[in-house]
């Protein structure tokens, strides 16, 4: 029995469709109501959780495999897992975004950057040798510049339409993001065959 945690919502839908396409029985998942734990006929036991919790369950060895966005992995300070496969779905990217004036504006104070992903923001500006003040916002980060709380934001950009609707634009791309399959290090040792079967299926090599 392979225990899997999937990030609820969009990643859940995309991963389950991908698994179904590659021959897994996903009917129990597609037909689920509000259950949080489901077992399929292929011997997969699946739980559905928030992105950061997927990582926590994997860290504690509660699940063997997790499906989670690269954004969550990058912003976490836990790294002791195998990050084995890029599923090439849920593609988007991290970027710095602001009003166009941001490019040329010279500030006489520390820049203020709003982000939900404080670690990504900090690492990015550190790599640019820039000292900035980072303010954590939990959602609708675009509000930062709009209400005048911050000079720019660091956020995930998919289509850029929210940015555009608020007069903001991408200043610089930071890195690509997509959905990843991560594996608990000890599980890989004891469930090698099952895990590589899943990998092969997801790569479409079965």
């Amino acid at each position, binding site marked *: 029995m392979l225990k899997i945690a999937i990030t609820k919502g969009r990643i859940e839908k995309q991963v389950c469709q991908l698994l179904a396409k590659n021959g897994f029985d996903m009917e129990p998942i597609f037909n689920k109501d509000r259950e949080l734990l489901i077992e399929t006929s292929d011997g997969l036991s699946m739980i559905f959780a928030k992105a950061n919790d997927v990582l926590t369950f994997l860290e504690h060895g509660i699940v063997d495999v997790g499906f989670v966005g690269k954004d969550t992995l990058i912003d976490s300070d836990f790294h002791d897992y195998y990050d*084995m496969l890029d599923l090439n779905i849920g593609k988007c990217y991290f970027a710095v975004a602001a009003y166009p004036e941001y490019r040329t504006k010279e500030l006489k104070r520390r820049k203020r950057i709003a982000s939900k992903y404080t670690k990504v923001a900090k690492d990015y500006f550190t790599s640019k040798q820039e000292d900035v003040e980072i303010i954590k916002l939990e959602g609708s980060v675009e509000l930062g510049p709009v209400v005048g709380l911050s000079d720019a934001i660091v956020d995930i950009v998919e289509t850029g339409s929210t940015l555009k609707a608020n007069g903001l634009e991408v200043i610089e791309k930071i890195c690509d993001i997509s959905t990843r399959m991560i594996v608990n290090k*000890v599980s890989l040792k004891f469930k090698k065959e099952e895990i590589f079967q899943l990998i092969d299926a997801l790569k479409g090599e079965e």
Partner: protein
Amino acid sequence: MEEFKYLIPEESIDAIMSNVSVLREIESGLRTIFTKNHYLEVLMPSFEYVDLYNDMDIGIEEEKMFQFINHEGKRVALRTDFTVPLARLYSSQNEDGEKRYCYFGKVYRKEKRHKGRSSEFFQAGIELLGKGGFEGDIECLTIIQQTIQCLKLKDIKIEISSAKFYKRLCELVDDVAFVKVLKKRDISSMEELVKRKNIQSPLKDLLLQLPQSFGDITVLNQMIDMIQDQKLKDALIELKEMYERLNMKDVFSFDLAMTPSMKYYTGIMIKGYSPYSAETIISGGRYDRLMNHFHKNVPAIGFSYDLSHILKALEKEEEANA
């Protein structure tokens, strides 16, 4: 009532181990075997200079140490590892001969908050200084094999690999991204790396195979057949020759994608796992150049048991089989 009368600091999550009697039983089993093999038990100090750990550059980040300023105005840290203080002890004894030490005690490393992780770990282990090559490796692996019974766990996997193989691979691939890709066993990025660096077979096949190159001796043989580079091949042939001299082979398997958990490893690397512990329960390796920091050229090898994790695994294994 005041909080400190009923709360413990978050660092102390597991300070009170519920299973002290089991711990002591395992400990005494290990002690008997260590003593039989002429390992001298040492009781190491709780504080060491932060500079000692930093100078060794062993890969433990400074922020993980519990640090204090002592009366000299110098930074001291709670012991974060046993190997470095034992290397210091050896060097202070002014001789270059063989020394066998064993130890039991806690190491302290700061962990992130609210992660359900403890900051103190009870370890047991041995260090064998002044004995290089196969003989030292075999002595250590034999002790591991003798002690497995004491750990009481039914299902244990012990994997060995070679830091020489790893280091040569890094040289051959020569890319900053490689170590991370290997550490994460990132199949997608490995494919991308091979393409980007235009790496040709047989190295290409080897790299793509690497994420799943773990298992019994057939994995090692397959890999040896695949390799053209002589240095790379020699590293694995050395590992194989050592393995063939072991008495009880079936305890050990191989993981050729293993990356050194301590920066100072130079030869064989050892890791032990239980399906009931998300962390490694045994960890060690050969470190022939660590003593260079003390201006000594002395080969050494050592390994440790993470008894806190072993105890937790035991509890879970018992629950699962109840």
